[in-house]
């Protein structure tokens, strides 16, 4: 039987990069094909070619053995290809039905929207594939996992047979991931075929029928999940041996460096985002804050670093009350902050790498004398840091935007770790990074811990939290629902806590 989809020799070059280099790929009917690769390996480029967003320089696409020409997403949809993007493309103030029918509206008498008909079809799709959703609910009221279902329904509504899911688990809780996997299985059971893009090793082993690994624009290998391991997949992805778990000694906690008491913070819309949060971080330990994205972590970090006003409670850093302190004052006490969105908060992308390496110390000696910047000193320090932290950049004078994500993050880490710090607040320090960079940054964080720095780590990635933390606090709907010793924690227990399931006995341990 011919494959439902076949890519032959797909090549796509961007200035200076060969994003796809003669890629061959075949998808069988009713199959879940996992496309595994680091950021920058060319997964998304390949899928964008398939979806008609890019035109390949070379290569052909076949659907059931007949050559097709896909010039834009309309062509792709017409060929039965549907894509669920990593970032949802939904209109928050529209209902599910309105979102689904957007672009392919059912109408009555030519112009009137026929919501009834649309809702009816959505219900059919829902029940057929186990995608529970209320067609009349507003999208903005739905949890992320359900919004993703809406995206999948959108694709099915357009009668796609081949579904491309681009990093679908990035925003989900472990439980939601389980739900998604069920949905994916029911899709293939009913004859659909799925390409599942990810960089998470555990997931591919769990869900895929076949795994294809991309590295630097090329297919470097294929495997069936039952005949491979995480370790060997990681090696294929990165091209060398990778240490997946962080090697660390027992923590040696010292003095309290951060004390948060009964903290209350509002979000941008004026709703309570953090309510009654209390915890401590000591010298030489990592406190991980686990939680699904959007449960108040962002606001918590902003409050601690002076970027957001605190409504109630108090924050003490190194014995100083910083509840009302400015970001600069907090930095000067000895706090480092690795922000969750490096491009939005952590870097000025149009500034040279050198300036970004002194972004918060440009005004103090030796980088400035009075109001005069000392460019020689800045350049000297920048070179030193680039070397010390292995930042790959053609020069310290190129704009930070020219660097890859991993190297941008290294710039931030280099800048923050080069100051004398006693407290590190690291928010999703490895978001979107490749395995190699993750390994490096994790190593640096543990090194800081062992030097006696207190570390507050915020991450929605369970692996990261469990690998690095000495203690783990779980955040749900703005509250710290539990603080546990790392050795007492299992993935399942964390997953349940993150999903808001309360434990009977108070799960607090002494800090």
């Amino acid at each position: 039987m011919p494959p439902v989809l076949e890519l032959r020799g797909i090549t796509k070059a961007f200035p200076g990069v060969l994003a796809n280099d003669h890629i061959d790929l075949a998808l069988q009917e009713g199959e879940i094909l996992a496309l595994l690769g680091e950021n920058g390996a060319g997964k998304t480029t390949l899928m964008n070619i398939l979806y008609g967003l890019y035109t390949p320089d070379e290569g052909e696409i076949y659907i059931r053995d007949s050559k097709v020409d896909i010039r834009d997403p309309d062509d792709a949809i017409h060929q039965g290809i549907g894509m669920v993007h990593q970032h949802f493309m939904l209109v928050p103030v529209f209902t599910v039905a309105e979102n689904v029918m957007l672009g392919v509206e059912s109408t009555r008498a030519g112009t009137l929207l026929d919501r009834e008909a649309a809702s009816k079809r959505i219900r059919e799709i829902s029940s057929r594939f186990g995608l529970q959703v209320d067609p009349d609910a507003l999208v903005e009221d739905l949890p992320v996992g359900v919004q993703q279902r809406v995206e999948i329904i959108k694709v099915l509504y357009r009668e796609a047979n081949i579904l491309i899911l681009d990093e679908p688990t990035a925003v989900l809780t472990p439980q939601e991931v389980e739900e998604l996997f069920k949905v994916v299985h029911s899709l293939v059971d009913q004859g659909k075929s799925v390409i599942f893009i990810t960089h998470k090793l555990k997931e591919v082993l769990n869900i895929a029928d076949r795994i294809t690994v991309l590295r630097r624009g090329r297919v470097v290998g294929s495997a069936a999940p039952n005949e491979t391991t995480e370790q060997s997949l990681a090696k294929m992805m990165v091209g060398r041996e990778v240490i997946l778990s962080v090697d660390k000694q027992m923590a040696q906690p010292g003095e309290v460096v951060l004390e948060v008491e009964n903290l209350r913070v509002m979000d941008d819309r004026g709703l309570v985002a953090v309510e009654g949060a209390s915890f401590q971080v000591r010298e030489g330990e990592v406190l991980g804050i686990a939680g699904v994205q959007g449960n108040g972590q962002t606001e918590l970090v902003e409050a601690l670093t002076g970027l957001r006003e605190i409504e109630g409670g108090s924050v003490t850093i190194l014995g100083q009350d910083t509840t009302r302190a400015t970001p600069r004052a907090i930095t000067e006490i000895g706090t480092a902050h690795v922000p969750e969105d490096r491009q939005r908060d952590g870097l000025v992308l149009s500034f040279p790498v050198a300036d970004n390496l002194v972004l918060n110390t440009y005004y103090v000696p030796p980088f400035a004398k009075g109001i005069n910047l000392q460019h020689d000193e800045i350049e000297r320090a920048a070179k030193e840091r680039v070397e010390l932290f292995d930042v790959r950049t053609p020069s310290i004078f190129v704009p930070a935007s020219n660097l890859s994500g991993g190297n941008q993050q290294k710039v931030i880490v280099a800048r923050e770790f080069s100051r004398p710090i006693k407290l590190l607040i690291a928010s999703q320090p490895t978001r979107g990074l490749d395995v190699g960079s993750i390994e490096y940054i994790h190593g640096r964080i543990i090194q800081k811990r062992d030097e006696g720095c207190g570390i507050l780590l915020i991450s929605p990635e369970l692996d990261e939290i469990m690998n690095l933390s000495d203690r783990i606090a779980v955040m749900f709907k703005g509250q710290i629902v539990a603080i546990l010793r790392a050795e007492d924690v299992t993935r399942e227990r964390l997953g349940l806590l993150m999903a808001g399931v309360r434990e009977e006995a108070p799960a607090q341990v002494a800090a």
Partner: protein
Amino acid sequence: MSDELEKPQTADLEAETERGLLQRIFVRKGVLAALVLPVLAVFTALVIGGIIIAASSPDVLEAWRRFFQDPLRALSTTWRTVWDAYYALFEGAFGNPVLIAKALGKLITTGESRDLLEALRPLSESLVISTPYIFAGLAVALGFRGGLFNIGAEGQLFVGGLAAAYVGYAVKGLPWVIHLPLALAAGILAGGLWGAIPGFLKARTGAHEVINTIMMNYIAFRLTDHLLQGPMARPDGLPITPEIAPSAYLPALFPRPMRLHLGFFLALGMAALVYWFLWKTTRGVEIRMVGANSRAARYAGVRITTIITLTMALSGALAGLAGTSQVLGVDHRMVRAFSSGYGFDSIALALLGNSHPLGVVLASLLFGFLRGGAARMQSVAGVPVEIIRVVQGMIIVFVAAPAIIRGIYRLTAPLEEEVVLSRGWGS
């Protein structure tokens, strides 16, 4: 999608030791690249301007009507018409090369300089026009660097002119070393205040600076009307201020009728100062940081509200200087019509100069020459002054929409980030 692309990672730290030379080449390449677009924009606008000149000339149209009888004449008439117009423009902007050469010879042989000055008078006039352009262009450019769109340069220019004129005529009996700086300071302060108000409103309440600077323009215009008709009017009741004391003049550099005054060099000096301030001082970095990414600036500990207010105040002060130099250097009094839209043109200048002080100076010189030459083009070649306005407008369109120029000349898009000229509403 861009983050999916692997950037070439040529970490050649060894080669860094030879950075000296490499960096110089790199920088020079950057300057060249930055010049390509504006130069092509000007060239293209002049070509299109030529077509318009040809198309609006009855002689040319007549010659083309007889194209099939005499094609050569159609072409030669067209060429001659356009050439005459642009030659007149050139003469009007710089002076007649033949006369200049002769006068130069005379200066060398006899030591008589009056002829040379007379021959160079068009150049002097062009530079006089460039002077307020440079100040006002710097004002808008500084705002752009700080992420703010100061549309209020014209109003700031008016209040600057008013303040300078007032100090100029009302304060008497001071030596010029005190009086001139005092008048300059008055203009700077008034413009600065006029800019700081919308700056403060933006910083504190988020009110958009575009709206508020426009409103401040109206206030400045009506304030000028009011003051010139009453409190500051000349004793005989004409709606102009009394003449300022000569001790407050920005001194002319050559004998009459050359009007080139010290203000021109003050403007050049100010461009250098703005460059130094923005790129070599901590405050300047803060302004550019806020302009390039205000969230990152906040993260880095910069006080955003202070910096926004400061940026607008400095921008206003520079625009105020434009009006001041016009009053103290050229008009020697404040009149309602003392600005021919310098403040509004300055937005275009900042754009054309890529918000860089050097770029602004070059753009201002260009506009000075175009304006200076336009009058002669009208009187000698009979081409309306408005054509030059059209050319100016087209330059701006081409610079603002670089895709057009890149399309015509098949250039690839630059890799460097371009300055964010204005962010969306409410940002």
